[in-house]
């Protein structure tokens, strides 16, 4: 994964099911029902971000970043490897929209992703300090560990705003 980078570096693009750890900017684009989860260490000024697609891994281990139940412990352990203390972590998430109600039958995956993330965070004694989830619109999320862990969210025709 990426090493600490200067602030003007282009953000690391995190695809579906991928994650990144470091101090440089990172980004998940075009989140629909997916969720961009960020964990920032306010003492070490590093962070980790993951692009989660589904709530449950159901035992699959090959892409831990893809599922809420495996992605949360993944980020925590990757930051712990770099010396992070649990009490220093600031957690935020955005995404989890429901863009196609008609096909939804009974599965609102975005909402289930968000619920699963909250539950797994609680198991790890962490809580969200900010979230922007649900609704019908897509989101692009950027994370700047080297700028105080700033997280910005942008919609298709809106300007980016901080959460």
């Amino acid at each position, binding site marked *: 994964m990426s090493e600490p980078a200067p602030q003007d570096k282009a953000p690391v*693009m995190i*695809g*579906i*099911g*991928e994650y990144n750890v470091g101090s440089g900017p990172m980004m998940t*684009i*075009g*989140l*629909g*029902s*997916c969720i961009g989860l960020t964990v920032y260490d306010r003492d070490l000024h590093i962070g980790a971000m993951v692009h989660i*697609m*589904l709530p449950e891994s159901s035992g699959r281990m090959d*892409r831990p970043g*893809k599922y809420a139940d495996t992605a949360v412990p993944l980020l925590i352990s990757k930051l712990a490897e770099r010396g992070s203390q649990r009490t220093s972590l600031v957690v935020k998430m955005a995404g989890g*929209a*429901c*863009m*196609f*109600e*008609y*096909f*939804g039958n009974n*599965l609102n*995956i*975005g909402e289930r992703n968000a619920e699963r993330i909250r539950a797994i965070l609680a198991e790890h004694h962490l809580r969200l300090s900010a979230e922007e989830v649900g609704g*019908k*619109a*897509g*989101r*692009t999320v950027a994370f700047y560990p080297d700028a105080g862990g700033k997280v910005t969210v942008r*919609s*298709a*025709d809106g300007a980016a705003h901080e959460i």
Partner: protein
Amino acid sequence: MKLSAVQVDAMQELGNIGAAHAATTLSQMLSSTVEMSVPKIKVVDVAQLADYIGDEPAALVVFELQGEIPHGGYIIVYISRKSAVRLTNTMLGLTDPDRPLNEMDESALLEVGNIMASAFLDATAELLGFIMLPSPPALTIDMAHAAMQSLIAQMQEEIDEVMLFSTELVCEEHRIDSDIIMMPEASMLKTFVERLENLMNPS
């Protein structure tokens, strides 16, 4: 599922026939010439989806493939937002290319998508000899990647790769660029390939 060279050719031909019918309907609706590209087959790892489809705003008219296979995947009519305005302007007799899209545009886009997807499915289903019906259409005008990602997340079979069959339809006179994209579930793709092989090698 990996396709052999022969299977790729067969699927390309299937896409070609479907897209040609969709192009004809679009051409009639616009009273103008519509050119189509050679159908492309892309196998995309979900982690790399953003390399193919970005977060630029677009209109997507989406249908679930139904019929003999109840959840067969999706057929998507993709139009960049700029092209979408030019398309509805042409249909509605308007001229401002920078106006926001309203309810009238949404109805028009749904209708265009519906006619194109139905033509695509009628032609391919007739060739294959089995029934494929489009679900009622859903329209979103939003980040294209977000829409595609949402569809992939709710596919029946959990997957790390999707196969996209896409054909570009272009109307130069009105500067309208669109894509008709089929994203079949693995079960549907298997049925397509089996039927096509039967057609090529009748026993």
